[in-house]
């Protein structure tokens, strides 16, 4: 605290007050959309404008999960994004470790090159990406049909297909999220001294034991941060599922929301708001977790 503040408490209080006032205005500005979504979703006759609900109802939520395919959308989204996040965490953990520990001239160029994946707009890549996936999918379909016959092959393709299958979307989502996660993990491992691994080596730990008992616990904050970034970003992705999925079975939450928006002649704001709220919630919860990891990861890594 600057010394002149101590002499002048009233001035200091004034400064505090204006700071809090500014912060409050900003937070209200940020919070209003969430608030509106929540309010509208439980409003019996919601409209485009922010209003206090005259009658409270959970009909919209009941409708999502009972009448519509809401449960399926949520599960599909969680499965696809969750699996992609898991893949990202495993690969970023291993890759980040390797990138941090090896001395090689190609490290810097490599790290900047992979960041390009993040920098290039997905939309611009979608056509070649689709072409590649389609080719792979046709080839895979041919193989599966030859082995299992037409019917079973279609069922299997729902899971492992590159187009209109879980696997394709999962892999592409993971690919998009991997570069940033690799950067986070590489930077994180840079702050973890080798001494820990060497101490474990002297203690007689095998490679697997060193990873499981020492490295993973040490890397957990970094992995958490990388995983949550990946989750939040992949959860919010709309274009990729839109392009890659078509079967009703495979629809994810953002697609459900989008189709509901397009569906009818009159727009049901209450229903859309409820759906939007369901879609928002995991991201907000994830962010709540992320804060802890972020603070640890970006304020100096492991402290022993």
């Amino acid at each position, binding site marked *: 605290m600057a010394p002149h503040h101590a002499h002048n408490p009233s001035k200091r209080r004034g400064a505090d007050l204006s700071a809090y006032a500014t912060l409050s205005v900003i937070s209200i500005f940020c919070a209003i959309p969430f608030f509106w979504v929540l309010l509208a979703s439980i409003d019996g006759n919601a409209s485009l404008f922010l209003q206090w609900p005259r009658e409270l109802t959970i009909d919209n939520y009941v409708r999502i999960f009972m009448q519509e395919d809401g449960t399926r959308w949520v599960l599909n989204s969680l499965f696809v994004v969750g699996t992609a996040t898991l893949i990202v965490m495993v690969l970023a953990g291993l890759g980040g470790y390797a990138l941090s520990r090896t001395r090689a001239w190609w490290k810097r160029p490599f790290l900047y090159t992979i960041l390009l994946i993040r920098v290039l707009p997905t939309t611009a890549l979608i056509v070649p990406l689709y072409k590649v996936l389609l080719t792979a999918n046709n080839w895979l379909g041919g193989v599966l049909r030859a082995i299992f016959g037409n019917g079973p092959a279609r069922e299997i393709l729902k899971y492992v297909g590159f187009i209109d299958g879980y696997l394709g979307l999962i892999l592409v989502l993971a690919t998009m999220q991997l570069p940033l996660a690799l950067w986070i993990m590489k930077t994180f491992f840079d702050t973890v*001294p080798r*001494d*820990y691994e*060497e*101490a*474990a*080596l*002297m*203690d*007689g*730990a095998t490679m697997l*034991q060193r990873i499981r*008992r*020492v490295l993973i*616990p*040490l890397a*957990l904050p970094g992995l958490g941060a990388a995983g949550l970034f990946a989750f939040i970003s992949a959860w919010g992705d709309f274009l990729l599922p839109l392009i890659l999925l078509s079967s009703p079975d495979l629809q994810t939450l953002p697609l459900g929301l989008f189709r509901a928006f397009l569906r009818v002649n009159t727009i049901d704001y209450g229903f859309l708001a409820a759906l939007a709220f369901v879609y928002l919630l995991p991201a907000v919860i994830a962010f709540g977790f992320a804060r802890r990891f972020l603070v640890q990861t970006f304020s100096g890594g*492991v*402290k*022993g």
Partner: protein
Amino acid sequence: MAVIELKNVRKYYGALEVIKGVDIRVEDGEFAVFVGPSGCGKSTLLRMIAGLEGIDGGDFLLDGRRMNDIAPDKRGIAMVFQSYALYPHMSVAENIGFSLDLKKVPKATIRKEVEAIAEILQLTDYLDRRPAALSGGQRQRVAIGRAIIKKPAVILFDEPLSNLDASLRVQMRAELQRLHRDLKATVVYVTHDQVEAMTMADRIVVLKGGEVAQADAPIALYHRPDNAFVATFIGSPRMNLVPVTIARAADGKAEVTAARLGAIHIDDSAMPLPTGPAQLGVRPEHLRLAADADGDFDSEILVVERLGVETYLTIGSLDQPIMVRVEGDIAMRPGDRARFSIDRQSCHFFDMAGRALPRA
């Protein structure tokens, strides 16, 4: 039993040779200290003994068995890291017992052994804490506990006290020596601090640029340094080195002349000193204030450091300062002149390459 022998050991980082053919022998139960300036290869050498660095040339023998290619955990060697490297996600007890846990020792046995170790190291009250909640000295003791629970034949320390403050360092020094007496393990201890080396070691190995400059008992290094490097590295304040010319005054008497110190006669009847240019090495404690009548030379006093119990005088010139240590408190001021004498018994001579000239 654990006798460590390094025979012509070498290490390269790429084309750079950092350990240049080192021969060291450490006897069973000895407390050996590797000392030297930063970057001289102490840590590298220690890590080669531990097995954390490969040995590119020569042999490392433990009790006569070649260890070059034995895995670190199979050597019966434990190491205390400079950073301590305590696992932050484990409690003190888990840290100490980790090596036993990896060996699938029953939990109850581990607990008993950990408690016994904690008793020795006064950590009993902290066993359930995380390392982050410990003081520097306590972390140090946990790191030692983690090493000694393995009952190693050799314990390696890499600058273990460098992260502690001065008073704690003195205390830990005594504690480590007590521990060494109790455990009877062979200890190799690395430090850049010559005082630490002098106070703790049975034997000191002075390293310089990846080579052994000299290895001997601490007090032998003080009295009989092999070269100017060891002479100035061991002892504090450091030994004065003065360029001199040696001439023959008489049979068994050499005349040593220095620009500012005048000429003194040295008895070299045991082993004649070679004539010509050389370096005179004389420690600050071997120069004295002298009465005006006798003494060897006059000098202006440049700096006075009064510590009460002793006084350091810097004399000579600024480009060739000479440090004098005088017992007790001497009230002198910079600019005063005084007469000094040199203790002839304690003079060292080095040739221009820094090798000690034999005196006997």
